[in-house]
């Protein structure tokens, strides 16, 4: 049974509220959280997919020194995507190559299973023309091609340029 690598966490954030939002501070916090969707929050090891249950930890915000912004501590429940090495995930194949198998997790996160992580007894079937992708044939006779689902084990996370990619392995299956 594949994991989802989805976790619910409660985080405390120290946020600023612009003067123009002073009459509706909750709206200001919501706008801030909206902009954090699909981003990585500080001190959270994962990607924020959703948030809920915003509450203020203080009765009033502070205006400090010469800044016109107000600052306040806020507590929010967040849903994060946080795959870990060894997790079992399922993805939909969207690219097949002798070099690697490309998948999408939850329809949005890319995963890649490089050649060295594919079992040695699997066979790559060359395409008839250069326009086609070809397919992988598993040791038990299954054919892997774009559109099929595939379970794999997380082998690592590649997080660069604000993007998260999952490196997978099939070596044990």
């Amino acid at each position, binding site marked *: 049974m594949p994991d989802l690598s989805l976790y619910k966490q409660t985080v405390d954030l120290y946020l600023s509220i612009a003067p123009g939002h002073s009459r509706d501070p909750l709206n200001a916090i919501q706008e801030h959280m909206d902009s954090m969707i699909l981003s990585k929050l500080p001190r959270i090891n994962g990607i924020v997919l959703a948030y809920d249950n915003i509450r203020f930890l203080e009765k009033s915000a502070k205006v400090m020194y010469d800044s016109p912004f107000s600052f306040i501590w806020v507590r929010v429940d967040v849903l994060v995507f946080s795959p870990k090495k060894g997790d079992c995930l399922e993805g939909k194949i969207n690219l097949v190559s002798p*070099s*690697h198998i490309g998948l*999408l997790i939850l329809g*949005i996160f890319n995963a*890649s299973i490089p050649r060295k992580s594919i079992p040695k007894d699997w066979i790559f079937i060359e395409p008839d023309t*250069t326009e086609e992708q070809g397919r992988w044939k598993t040791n038990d006779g299954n054919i892997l091609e774009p559109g099929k689902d595939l379970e794999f084990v997380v082998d690592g996370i590649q997080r660069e*340029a604000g*993007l998260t990619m999952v490196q997978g392995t099939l070596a044990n299956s």
Partner: protein
Amino acid sequence: MPSIISSTNPQYINKCVNNGTMASSTNVPDRTVGSKSFASSVSKNDGRLMQQMLRAFVNKALDDKAEGNFAGYEDLRRQFAAKSDTKDAPSSLQLQNLLSALTCNVSRLDSSNSSLVMSVLDSVWVSRDESFVRCYTRFLGNLISAQSNYLPLVMTMLIQHMLYRPDSLAIHYEHAHMALKYVLELVPRAHSFLYSSILEEFPYKDESLLAQMTYISNVLSICEYVPSIKGPVLHAIIDKIIQIDVEIQVEVDDDDEEEDEVVTDDDGTSNADSEVITASTLYERHTAISSEMTSSTILTPPSLTDTRQLMQQLDQLLYTLFSYLDSNLKSTSRDRYLVYNSLIKSFVNTVLKTFRCRYTQFLIFWASQLDPEFTDIFLGVLTEVCLDPSQPYTLRLSGAMYIGSYVARAKALEKNTIQIIVNMMTRWVEAYLDQCENELSDDLLSKHSVFYAINQSIFYIFCFRWRELCVSDESESMEPRPNEWIPGLEILHRSVLSRLNPLRYCSPNIVLQFAKVANHLNFMYVYSIIEQNRKGIFREGFDTMDAYFPFDPYRLTKSSIIVQPFYNEWQQIPGLDDDEEEEDTDYESSTVMLGESPF
């Protein structure tokens, strides 16, 4: 070590294949050959054999590099780094075959091999044949599917191919769009980089019209297959256009004659509805425009060239945007509300806050009249900006001027709508007078500027829309019976007699025109107040409101074809001109040229 491609030594080829086999006992091609050899045709076998040799070559080059021997790797990289017009440049077919081989090894192209990837990304590809472009596209897709760290580079490269180049053809942009679609399909998170890449590559405003048009039309094409960025892209384009608009105004203020000398554009204008806007279509238009601009430049005196070119540039950019919006705001378009709301947002965030922009606001002027619902949304936004006391003063003044100009000039407005807006404004005036009339203050103009702006807008609307402000159902406007006016207008009597005295502080041009029209229609007689104010001006000084009406007549010839059907021109008032001479004699009021708008 010579390249395998250029080598004619059969022994070397055999040696390479053998080494490949030995280096990687799990090499895929070998087993495939064994299982497929009897089924393959001769020609397929030849192609397949070439592919296997090249894959082996690439594998060997990467293996050697890992062991410290860079010769094969550098040779491979140089194939892609070579200038395409030099004698020893590899052919498209050679590069294509190498690309296919690389595509099968992308999982090995990590950051330690980034110089090779850089060379491939920098190589010429959009101008090659279809087969090559498809192969290159597959390489890009495979690359970023396996190695996410190259994604920003790939996105930047693809967006840069949307820019104008002297030797570009329409098909080159189609190739770039095809690759971009494929990349976005494989890696959904690439959307995060798309908008920032588009902003990054935007041409500067002083670049040629052709450069501007090419890029904007390509970006609008991207919006067709990435609808989620339509809003932000529209905002960015309007931002660019308004910078040109404002710059023209600076120059036009210096040289008023310029505006009258706008060259008529003879380019045949087809109905925007009948054409689907694509990069190809717009690109072909650009080419025609480019030749026109060339001849125009030659014939124009140098001192007038810059402003005239900016005017043409602005006209063409606005026309492009009008055409694009026209196809997106049709009643059958599924994005119409999203696009319209993005326009409103751009208007509120940018246009409304830009002092003295001249033409950009006509985008919303035109769009808001396409549907009564759009009109309501726009008027609602303007009313909210203008009458909300929590909004900054400058924004409220701007909002008042926009309401006045829009209600006066928007042809599609219905009588009922005009009456509702005027009643709303006059109710505000009444409430304001109740609250502030008895306050003692020395500096009336700055303290009550919103009040004066709203009164000025009502005066302006009255001059243009008095017919719609009559309650009478008679079609004949000059019945013996005096006009009945909508109830809200009654407050103007109180306003002009109040201590705040709007006739003193509103723009003299508008005040005089209002006085003339109001007197002629027997609405009210205000000349005595004006005369008193005139005496006061000698004592107190000459401060008055600005007379800025954003929807003054539109002069950009090409795009005016779209605006004109929605524009309410000034109409002569029946009987008023006959009395003009007599009035001049009696009251020494300003003379207005016959047939011309008094504003």
